[in-house]
């Protein structure tokens, strides 16, 4: 594994580009765009975490947004209990996500294929309706946060501060997943994706590996949830609806699965495209849907496939 793998170079270029966004848009006199770009980064984290199970583990979860919700509610609960530090909230979100993912993942992994897709959806919907019924947390309407969190005593009230914290989280998680997917653990996961029977014949039991990956992905996604709640200063069950889970899959497949870089690119482009199209027309969904259909029809493997054919970075990894 050369450290200068093309997909790693492409990811570094993306991160560098995103790091330049706040000063550039401030200089252009439109600092609000920092918030838009921050949204792109948050979803990049969520899509990245989904890539671990969907891309590397072939576990198509249609309930991944539940963990986005757990992260967001960790902020709301943390604020109530006097936990205003981002790291403490992340820990709380991870603990809630890990607990939920461990139980539901163990049950879901009994099933395969479309049944796995649907049982993960079922569990996410249960979590969704659980939070809808919590009237102390605003129920269906959600709850507005009084203030953003702080990080080690530094307030994240400024959009710029939160932006770079999000970018830092994205890069850390990318690096972590890059190492993890290249490790023995990641190879077992990939081997199971390619042929579970052969892995079993080689003496591996796929179940613990898949379950651990499922829990890790859930925890990482909750980080995105914590950041999303801080960004919007608002928490609602809508963050964990099936629609959101579907969007996460769309971003990931759009960018290309199983490359990590594709997940980041897919989220950046999909959220960016939404925002740009929304400027031109209220009917932006028409254009966005058309782009998705055209990408599938004419470019297998999503944007990564497109980039490959155009001869720019982003080589797929097995």
């Amino acid at each position, binding site marked *: 594994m050369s450290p200068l793998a093309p997909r790693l170079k492409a990811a570094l270029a993306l991160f560098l580009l995103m790091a330049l966004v706040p000063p550039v848009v401030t200089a252009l006199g439109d600092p609000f765009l920092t918030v838009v770009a921050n949204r792109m980064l948050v979803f990049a984290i969520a899509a990245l975490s989904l890539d671990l199970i*969907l891309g590397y583990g072939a576990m*198509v979860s249609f309930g991944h947004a539940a963990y986005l919700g757990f992260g967001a509610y960790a902020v709301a609960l943390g604020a109530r209990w006097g936990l205003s530090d981002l790291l403490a909230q992340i820990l709380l979100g991870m603990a809630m996500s890990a607990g939920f993912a461990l139980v539901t993942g163990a*049950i879901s992994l*009994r*099933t*395969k*294929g*479309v*049944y796995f897709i*649907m*049982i993960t*959806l*079922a*569990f996410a*919907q*249960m979590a969704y*309706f*659980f939070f*809808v*019924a919590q*009237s102390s947390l605003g129920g269906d309407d959600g709850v507005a946060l009084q203030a953003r969190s702080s990080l080690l005593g530094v307030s994240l009230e400024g959009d710029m501060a939160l932006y770079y914290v999000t970018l830092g989280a994205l890069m850390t998680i990318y690096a972590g997943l890059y190492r993890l997917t290249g490790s023995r653990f990641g190879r077992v996961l990939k081997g199971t994706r390619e042929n579970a029977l052969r892995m079993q014949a080689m003496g591996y039991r796929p179940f613990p590996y898949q379950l651990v990956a499922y829990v890790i992905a859930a925890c990482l996604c909750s980080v995105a949830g914590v950041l999303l709640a801080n960004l919007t200063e608002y928490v609602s069950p809508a963050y964990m609806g*099936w*629609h959101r889970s*579907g969007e996460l*899959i*769309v971003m990931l*497949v*759009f960018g290309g*699965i199983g490359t990590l870089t594709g997940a980041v690119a897919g989220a950046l482009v999909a959220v960016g495209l939404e925002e740009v199209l929304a400027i031109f027309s209220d*009917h932006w*969904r*028409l254009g*966005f*849907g*058309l*782009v*998705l*259909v055209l*990408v*599938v*029809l004419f470019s*297998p493997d*999503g944007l990564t496939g497109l980039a490959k054919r155009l001869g720019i970075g982003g080589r797929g990894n097995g």
Partner: protein
Amino acid sequence: MTNLFLLQLLNGAQFGILLFLVAAGLTLVFGIMDFINLAHGVLYMVGAYLMATFAGLTDSFWLGLMLALPATLIFGLVLEFLVFRRLYDRSHLDQVLATFGLILMLSEGVRILWGSAPLNVDMPELLSGSVPLAGPLKYPVYRIAVIAAGLASAVGLWALINHTRVGMLLRAGASNRPMVAALGVDISRLFMLVFAFGAMLAGFAGAIVAPILSVDPGMGESILILTFVVIVIGGVGSIRGAFLAAILVGVVDTVGRTFGPIWLRMVMDPSAAAQTGRMLAPMLVYLLMAAVLFWSPTGLFGRKGAK
């Protein structure tokens, strides 16, 4: 109390029948072509909108229905020709991505053409009014007609699949597609037929539900997830499973929403019962699905070892 229960049972059955009409096409397309079509709910919505338009134009429910059915059929064929046939050989994820894009496009297209405001369709004169059920209880004729129409379609479908040549080819295609193709059957034409037929059934469900629900651009998405729940509980590809699961889901959902809080009140104090009931009622269907998949990972009538 018994009367209310009976009423909700009928409402549940009627909802279940509608779910079955939408699910039948989806489970066939899924089981036979191994194609995940998220846009299937859109066909239900398009059926309802075409019904609203044609019934409005002709000023007649029956003429509207006569026109809406072939129109959805043609719409399904056009979609199949333009998009779906290019996706059969692609991965499930590509199919999800493309059909998700189609949902966005078609829902927005409907919004542009018909606006976001809900439309109404008048009930036909013949089927308005209600009939006395047990005691003082009355039940609307139209809902009974919906149940009857759905049951008739289910029987028709059963006969078609089990007792005709096309049905035989379908069953053969579901179990071994390359073999059927090797025997000289034009499999792509068969696919087109199944797809268009499924589209028409979904459109039919949308058309007959139009007078009792308002027709709005969100209706396709709300039924889509429940339809998937139905076909997964029933087992992908099984019409019989889809029928049982649809009735089960319809009844559990409808009865649970009304009786959940009532039953909970017997074991806990009223305010806690109301809170828990509000939480559990919408969850019931998903609890049911998770439980079924826990005991039988390929649904009630799914083939063991199926993908």
